[in-house]
């Protein structure tokens, strides 16, 4: 009897876990989306914050608009619709970024700021065959942005502390613990380690959740 009840309860735990796009099902950690800017450009917390603002301004509007527009377009060209929408939204997003940050600060991000237009974190949705409802696009866009921003801020802060010994420009520890964290190869390694630890923590929490729902 308990076995019959076990499976749907386990499925509900999995469903809850999939919906949590910040910790349990983070788009970066679990699906590997948005890695290009993360590994090369997110070397300091300041860069991380700038990238987060860009993603916030870019992701949700793109997803909502593209969901709207894909109603009127041929199924096969959905990738095109999403990419063009992202490019169009970028015009506005870049203008707002120009108001918030100086050109010197934005130059630190280099090509990884415009590159967000083609990044899977923004475009991935086009690969699914079903069209998205506008309301769902809004909700999912916002929570995916939150998930990406959480991972981005965490990893960029970690890389700054390890690689430079500072946080947001002010020194935190004496010297750099692992200077390579500022390089792309160190970025790959640090991201792999963060994924490992994060996944272990998420697995532990999921196990706790499934123990809680198990009938006594």
């Amino acid at each position, binding site marked *: 009897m308990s076995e019959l009840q076990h499976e749907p309860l386990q499925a509900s735990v999995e469903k809850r876990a999939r919906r949590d796009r910040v910790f349990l099902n983070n788009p970066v950690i679990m699906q590997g989306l948005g890695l290009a800017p993360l590994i*090369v450009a997110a070397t300091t917390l300041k860069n991380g914050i700038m990238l987060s603002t860009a993603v916030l301004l870019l992701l949700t509007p793109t997803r909502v608009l593209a969901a709207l527009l894909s109603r009127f377009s041929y199924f096969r060209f959905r*990738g095109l619709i999403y990419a063009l929408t992202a490019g169009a939204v970028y015009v506005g997003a870049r203008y707002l970024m120009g108001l918030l940050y100086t050109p010197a600060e934005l130059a630190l991000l*280099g090509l990884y700021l*415009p590159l967000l237009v*083609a990044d899977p974190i923004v475009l991935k949705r086009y690969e699914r065959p079903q069209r998205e409802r506008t309301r769902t696009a809004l909700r999912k866009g916002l929570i995916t942005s939150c998930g990406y921003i959480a991972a981005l801020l965490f990893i960029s802060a970690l890389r700054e502390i390890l690689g430079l010994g500072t946080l947001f420009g002010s020194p935190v520890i004496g010297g750099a613990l692992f200077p390579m964290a500022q390089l792309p190869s160190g970025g790959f390694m640090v991201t792999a*380690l963060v994924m490992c630890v994060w996944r272990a923590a998420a697995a532990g929490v999921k196990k706790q959740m499934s123990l809680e729902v198990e009938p006594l």
Partner: protein
Amino acid sequence: MTEVLRALGSFFAYAVIAVFAQNAVFTRSLGVSRLVKLSEDDEVGSLVFGALLCAVQIISAMMGFFVNRWLFASAFWIYLRPLVMVLCSAAAFFVVLLVVVICFRVHGAREIVAVLPMATFNTCILGTLLLSTIQNFTFTQTLGFALGSGVGYVMAVALVRGAQERLQSEAVPATFRGLPITLLYIGILALAIYGFTGHMLAF
């Protein structure tokens, strides 16, 4: 004659540099998300994806060069650049689609066309386009860099796929399995290439 030779030399030099010393994946992390997906997934053939990627890359690079020349001085170029580059890659998408449909007929082309959007709208294509326009390469340099970028990406896919036997073994700890260990593998190769260039590349 010397002009032609010099142009050819510049083309090949930039192509070789883009494959090895400035590899899109290992030095600039372009297209990594797609690469990890591809390496785990055996359905999409590397050859088909690679050929499509290179074709789209070269065609869009040519268009991007001329558009950049034309719009370079405009005040709105920094806002419009990604959109225009996406339009160039969309145009390349249609050109390649046309060629594939003509060569393979509609029925045979179906599988190839299913892969085409994935090969067109990714960070590798857009990244290379942005780089060649931001750094103002000449025409032959743009073409060489685009070809090298595509070939370098395919080489990275081949290298990571070749390592799948070790990366997917049961011995890898559960928390590392899949994405993290692939990233670690790419990171170590990126370190090896860094030993060659010795400095972080401009982006």
